[in-house]
């Protein structure tokens, strides 16, 4: 039988002894070097598991060790050592096993982030006491007031109570919506916007109120925010973000020198994904609610166009790519709303006055009395034509409501 060259350390000093190692009589390891000899029965020895090309170590009972290059003979000498690690080592050397591992890892990651994290967060959100959510909302509002430049509203009381009444009508009959409240804020820095804070508070900016030309657009926006409220989106989003950060941080802990970017970028993209999902849910909720309350869902499309026009006016070069936006493509959202509007028109022909394209003069012969209204309608239509031209392939983050943090 062949012998292997090895380095022997006695465990008492760092001295190297070059030795030859071979199996003697099937049960003894024989070490021979210049002026050195030692025999050890195999059962007194243990061997380090095979790993890539690194040196193997045979440990002797008295702390001495043999260091030798990896060789198939070693595993013949110690056939029963470390069955688990032997198996893992085979997997690591097997191309199919490696391919399967890649698949397992990628699928698990996808499962975790698209299903596991949302599921966990939603279970926790369900368990969370209402007071916690409410307190969280108060905290967020206080921070917005302090740091985001939200100021007391400049709308007059009459206008405010009008809108409050519309809000009350919208939420009437929604389960658990009794405590939802609407707040007005003047926010020059943020512009036309509405926010759903955790715990039932909806904030609408003066800028949004004065931007729209018909209160039914505000209804559409508020219905969307109520959708966020009814489904606790703000809280769920907060929980999801926390989970993503925790998981990413644990994973990055193993990556060592990989920098924070490695964690930050995917986290950012994932959060965008989650919030797009919530936006779609809130949209669907808003379209349903509007139809139930006898207002055409097409008003939602109308509100979107108004906001879109505003944004594109503000930001001529508004070319934020769709996948970075926290909202689904504005165009898709408008189409959804238009479709719901058509369905509404068919199901409720008697409510034709509630449609945005209602023409009082042509359909009801109210030309003279309604002159003022008609003008407004025309203006809106002008806007519509303008924007569709401008916005051909521009996705705007319609500021309906970035999720508050």
């Amino acid at each position, binding site marked *: 039988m062949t012998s292997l060259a090895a*380095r022997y*350390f*006695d*465990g*008492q*000093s*760092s*001295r*190297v*002894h*070059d030795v030859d190692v071979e199996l003697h009589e099937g049960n003894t390891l024989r070490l021979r*070097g*210049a*002026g*050195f000899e030692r025999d050890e029965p195999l059962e007194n020895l243990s061997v*380090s598991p095979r*790993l*890539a*090309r*690194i*040196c193997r*170590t045979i440990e002797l009972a008295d702390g*001495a060790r043999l*260091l030798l290059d990896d060789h198939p003979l070693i595993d013949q000498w110690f056939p029963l050592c470390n069955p*688990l*690690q032997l198996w*893992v080592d085979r*997997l*690591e050397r097997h191309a199919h*096993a*490696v391919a399967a*591992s*890649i698949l*397992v*890892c*990628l699928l*698990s*990651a996808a499962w975790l982030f698209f299903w596991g994290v949302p599921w966990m967060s939603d279970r*926790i959100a369900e368990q969370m006491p209402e007071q*916690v959510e409410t307190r969280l909302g108060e905290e967020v509002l206080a921070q917005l007031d302090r740091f985001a430049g939200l100021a007391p509203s400049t709308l007059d009381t009459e206008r405010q109570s009008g809108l409050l009444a519309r809000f009350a009508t919208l939420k009437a009959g929604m389960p658990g919506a009794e405590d939802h409240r609407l707040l007005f804020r003047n926010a020059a*820095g943020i*512009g036309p916007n509405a926010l759903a804070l955790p715990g039932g508070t909806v904030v609408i900016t003066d800028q949004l109120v004065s931007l729209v030309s018909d209160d039914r657009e505000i209804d559409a926006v508020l219905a969307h925010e109520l959708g966020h409220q009814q489904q606790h989106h703000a809280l769920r989003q907060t*929980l999801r973000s926390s989970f993503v950060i925790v998981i990413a*941080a*644990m994973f990055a*802990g193993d*990556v*060592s*020198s*990989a*920098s924070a*970017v*490695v964690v930050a*970028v*995917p986290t950012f993209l994932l959060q965008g994904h989650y919030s797009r999902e919530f936006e779609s849910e809130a949209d669907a909720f808003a379209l349903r609610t509007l139809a139930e309350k006898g207002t055409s869902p097409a008003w939602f499309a109308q509100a979107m166009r108004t906001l879109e026009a505003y944004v594109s006016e*503000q*930001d001529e*070069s*508004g070319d*934020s790519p769709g996948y970075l936006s926290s909202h689904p493509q504005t165009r898709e959202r408008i189409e959804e709303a238009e479709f719901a509007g058509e369905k509404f028109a068919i199901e409720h022909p008697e409510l034709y006055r509630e449609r945005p394209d209602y023409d009082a003069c042509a359909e009801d012969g109210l030309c003279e009395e309604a002159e003022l209204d008609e003008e407004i309608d025309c203006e809106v239509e002008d806007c519509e034509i303008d924007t569709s031209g401008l916005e051909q392939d521009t996705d705007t983050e319609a500021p309906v409501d970035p999720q508050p943090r």
Partner: protein
Amino acid sequence: MTESDDFSLPLAAPPPPPPPVPHWPARAQPKPLVEHEFEFSGRGNEYFRIWIVNLALTILSLGIFSAWAKVRTERYFYGNTKLAGVPFEYLAKPLPILLGRIIAVGLFSAYVLAGQFSIALQLGLALLVAVLAPWLLVRGLMFRARYSSWRGLSFRFVPDYGESYIRFLVLFLPLLASFGLLYPWVKGKQKEFIVEHHRYGTQVFRFLANPGQFYPPYLIAWSVIFAWMFGGGMLLGFGMAMISAGNDSPPPEWIIWAFVVAIYAGYFVVLAFLAAAIANLIYNNTEVGGRRFQSRLKGGKLLWIYSSNTVLILVSAGLLIPWAMVRLARYRAECLSLLARDDFNDIAVRQGQGIDAIAAEVDGLFDIDIGL
């Protein structure tokens, strides 16, 4: 030997070296100083197989296998790092590591959950960990040193909990009181503590630098960051003024993003150079039994490795992490050598005691900076 944060080099500081000298070399007159280089022979594609299979097994076993995965990873990096032709060995067993991980995960989950219910509870737990940190740090260093071996001898970390509490907890008071200005000095004191309590056999590690020597790299880094942010801020203000000069609209969003990206990039650059400078400072002032280390890390090269690694990891959805780790380990080893007059053959053992893995793992998860 690579698992640690940006600033750290192998915790189990490599020890003395000799070439694979044959049997009993002649004990003779003063020998010339010989430079023994560290070499790292790991390969990205090889480590990838180990990494991905171990990750998959960890997932499939719901985390249980992670202890075995850790041992295999450490063994791969230790075993591929050679000094004077002899590889290092990582000797820890998976089971104690598994136990440590279970406790660490339990603590961490408690921390996260506590945050959902009561901030006070969470703060309490954080405080507890902070108070335990110096103790955990020492335990972690003891564990790692105990299971790091070269030429058949293990390293040791001699515990001194009192000193650990002073340097890792008490010194934070003057640090806060000085608004962070004492940070380099505190950092120096901490590194000194870690280096000087390591042993290899009978050989004692010594730290020759004065903690004050940590000031120049940090002062340069701080000044550059400050200048960079100040300049960037001026440019931002100027740019916004220019753009919105003609109209009343708020400035476009991209300009803010560009600002953030530029600041972050500047931070990244400074960090790479700082990491190189600090690692060089520490190694070049570390002595073990009269043998000196020599570290020649270059900030520019390190920056290139960090930034290209980051891009590779991002575009590959993480699959290139093993290549990134191997590249970094190779560069670090390339830049490190040990100057010695002897052949390392006459270092004797001094037995240390076995140390449980729990402290090491709790440390790792809470990511306390324990880099040498």
